[in-house]
């Protein structure tokens, strides 16, 4: 899509004073807010004055610069999040070194002795995510297949909004239901010895990640070009054979991206885990005991932010850094895969 600026000349082409002034004032505001919060008002007022003048006198130019500033803000926010998380977590890394993720025998977490090892939490996150993906991935892809290929029109109209609404149920409501229904069920019917277990959290998070997988996979499957499927049918293959041998391989990158996004969602899930689990920072015994009761990275932060100060708070930030890095890597990976899929199929999604 070509932009208007290709065809119409705007302005006189020289960098304008207004843009420079806008950029400087907004940079000053941000800087002031970060370093000397009390003085933020002055650059902010200056920015508004310049913007008002520019809007009145050179609206075209001011609009463009303002939009540029707004766009840059997204990058700025991400950068700020990264920087602040890392900076705040440095004291914990300094105290613990690499042991913070590598210490594999207990005790693990003792704030009074400044002992902060994240291994049980990482293990807990890993187990719950695995269980969640075992539920969300196959059922999600199957659901996506149903919605885009098998369902009659009326079922599709009903099911797509239904899946989106399922995605909308807040996680605290899931956590509440898990706490009130699943935990006592596990305790009474299955005689689990603690109130709260990793498998309960895994099941709940799986149900939460399911709609994400379904929506994205459905988009991917629906974007496979019709002619490809028609060709297969013309050769005498059944619908199902077309799906398994033509559609899914063609949409494979998209489906993988969907599963990766589901994984990202499952890793970042906080409130369900916080409410359902009991917060003992120990490793389940034996290690593969899915009925064990330990902590995940997210529930650690949510349950301890209030009592933490000093080095303990820094350790919580360290957990946040681990989370953030993991999810960022997964997100970039799924983005790359989706871009490749668009390239392969040659169409806009």
């Amino acid at each position, binding site marked *: 899509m070509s932009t208007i600026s290709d065809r119409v000349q705007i302005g006189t082409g020289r960098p304008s004073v207004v843009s420079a002034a806008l950029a400087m004032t907004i940079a000053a505001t941000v800087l002031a807010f970060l370093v000397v919060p009390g003085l933020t008002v002055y650059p902010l007022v200056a920015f508004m004055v310049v913007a008002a003048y520019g809007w009145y006198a050179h609206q075209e130019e001011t609009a463009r610069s303002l939009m540029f500033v707004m766009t840059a803000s997204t990058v700025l926010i991400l950068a700020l999040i990264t920087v602040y998380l890392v900076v705040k977590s440095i004291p914990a890394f300094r105290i613990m070194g690499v042991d913070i993720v590598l210490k594999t025998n207990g005790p693990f977490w003792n704030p009074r002795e400044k002992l902060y090892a994240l291994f049980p939490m990482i293990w807990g996150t890993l187990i719950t995510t695995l269980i969640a993906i075992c539920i969300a991935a196959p059922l999600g892809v199957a*659901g996506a297949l149903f919605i885009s290929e098998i369902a009659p029109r009326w079922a599709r109209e009903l099911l797509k909004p239904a899946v989106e609404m399922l995605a909308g149920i807040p996680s605290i409501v899931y956590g509440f239901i898990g706490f009130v229904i699943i935990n006592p069920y596990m305790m009474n019917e299955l005689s689990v010895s603690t109130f709260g277990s990793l498998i309960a959290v895994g099941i709940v998070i799986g149900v939460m990640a399911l709609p994400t997988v379904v929506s994205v996979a459905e988009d991917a499957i629906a974007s496979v070009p019709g002619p490809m499927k028609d060709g297969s049918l013309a050769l005498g*293959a059944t619908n199902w054979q077309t799906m398994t041998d033509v559609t899914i391989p063609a949409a494979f990158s998209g489906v993988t991206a969907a599963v990766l996004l589901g994984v990202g969602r499952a890793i970042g899930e906080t409130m369900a885990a916080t409410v359902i689990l009991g917060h003992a920072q120990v490793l389940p015994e034996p290690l593969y005991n899915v009925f064990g009761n330990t902590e995940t990275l997210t529930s650690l932060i949510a349950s301890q932010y209030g009592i933490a100060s000093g080095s303990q708070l820094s350790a919580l930030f360290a957990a946040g850094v681990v989370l953030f890095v993991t999810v960022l890597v997964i997100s970039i990976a799924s983005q790359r895969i989706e871009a490749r899929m668009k390239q392969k199929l040659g169409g806009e999604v």
Partner: protein
Amino acid sequence: MAVDSTPTNDLVQEGTGRLQTIGYVLQAVALLVLVASFALLFEVVDAQSLVAGQSVLTWMGLGFGVLGLGFVAVAGLSRADLVESTPIKSAGVGAGIVYALIGFVVVGLVSSQTLGLQTLWVIPAILAGGLVFLGAVYPREDIGSTLPAAGFMVFAGTTFLTGTIGLDWTWQPIPNGAVFDASMALIVTGFFGGLLGAWTAARAGNGFGSRGRQSGAYLLVSVNAVAMAALLFALVTFVAVRGWAPMTRGIKTGIFWEPVYWFYFQPIQEYVIFQIPGLWFYWPFTMEGAALMNDINGVAPAIIGTFWLVVGAILFAVPLGVGAAVFLTEYAEQGRFTQLVEISTNGLWSTPSIVYGLFGLALLVPRLGNSNSILTGMLVLGFMLLPLVVITSRESLKSVPDEYRDASAALGVSQWQTIKSVVLPAAMPGVITGVILGVGRIAGETAPILLVTGGSPFPSTGADIFDPRFAFTGQFPWVSLNIVNVDPLLQPSSALPYQLYAVISAGLSENLSFAWGTALVLLLVVLGFYAIGIASRAYFRRKLQA
């Protein structure tokens, strides 16, 4: 012209009569077994409860037996060509692996539990798996896909019917883990067995071959989809049923008469009062806070808190997001900068909410009054809303056809004017839809609010932000006009998701119905936003296509 007497085959064989009927019957039995396992899971019935004279355990065992015998019969009929079926040479590697896994698990369980082999159970298990695989793949499809399933069914049936897994059986697979009893065994076996039986019956009933496989696959996928829809329905209904009574307790309505104008009428020496009817509506749960003197405690402060948080987040995120989207689609060229922006937008979108909360705690809280406040919550939720607004605005801006822009340029309108008066209005519906859906998401977020806004768990009054007051004063400038109180913006507040979390933390022994009511209010608010967003998206899509 001579009548063509050569027999014609149908192009697609529809309805193979006897076989299809048998297939349907077996599918029905298998689905019944599946339903029974769900009934056991949700404790509608118990393993020993009696249904028509026999315990549920016995009925399920019988079901398995029927399935097993039915599959053997189908295999025999098909092999002896007594029914029309189109099996191909082999059941396929996929089916072979499924059956092999089942064989592995069953023999493994038997050898480790019944025979007591500690680690050696792997050997007979692998052997069994291999044998079953060969048995499924090697013979013709109509034998290879039914007999292994029949074997499993018969095995399960006899195990339950003969009491090997009786009503007082227990098993603890993982030390310190859960203890499974007969009900659990029935649930697991019923679930997998029912699905397996339905799948095999669907294949068999449609004559094997590729048509049979399609039917089998369709059945499984449809069951899955029905289950997902049923799950949503069940979740929402469950919360609604439990929460309806506490939420609607004490609602009072009525008509009251409001005096509007009166004057003194001399001849009758009385006041004449003109009254108009007014509507009186009192809903305690959403209009009251939690205070001692209340008959019914409510969540009004939480609703007010959520309202202000959402308003603040929208005011912050929508201009910023739409501006960024406009720049990306209208002004910028594809290059490093746009790629960077795309990466960071996606990164922001997938960042966990607790990380946003930590960020707010680290950056904003010390700079905005050093305590939890609504303002910080607004900003953090705005950060969360931003990527969603950018993404949906970009999509809706891209979907505005180029013709609009070209026509405007042809008239000599500058780029910014074009955007302002042509492109943006056309893209507005998509933007609004995206904002509504985004608001639905952030209205339900708890973690950031917990960290940066949360205040006392059972507040009695909400934040008094919108407080229009107008009065004449005695000094310059002789009027006092107050629209918005800034002070409450810097105080902690409650919000609906936080309120639910606080109730759970405060202990549910006395507050359980309050918690259900809060959950229902939260669900209604969030799902309401989603419903409006989805409906508006469908509406605008239809208008665009029309």
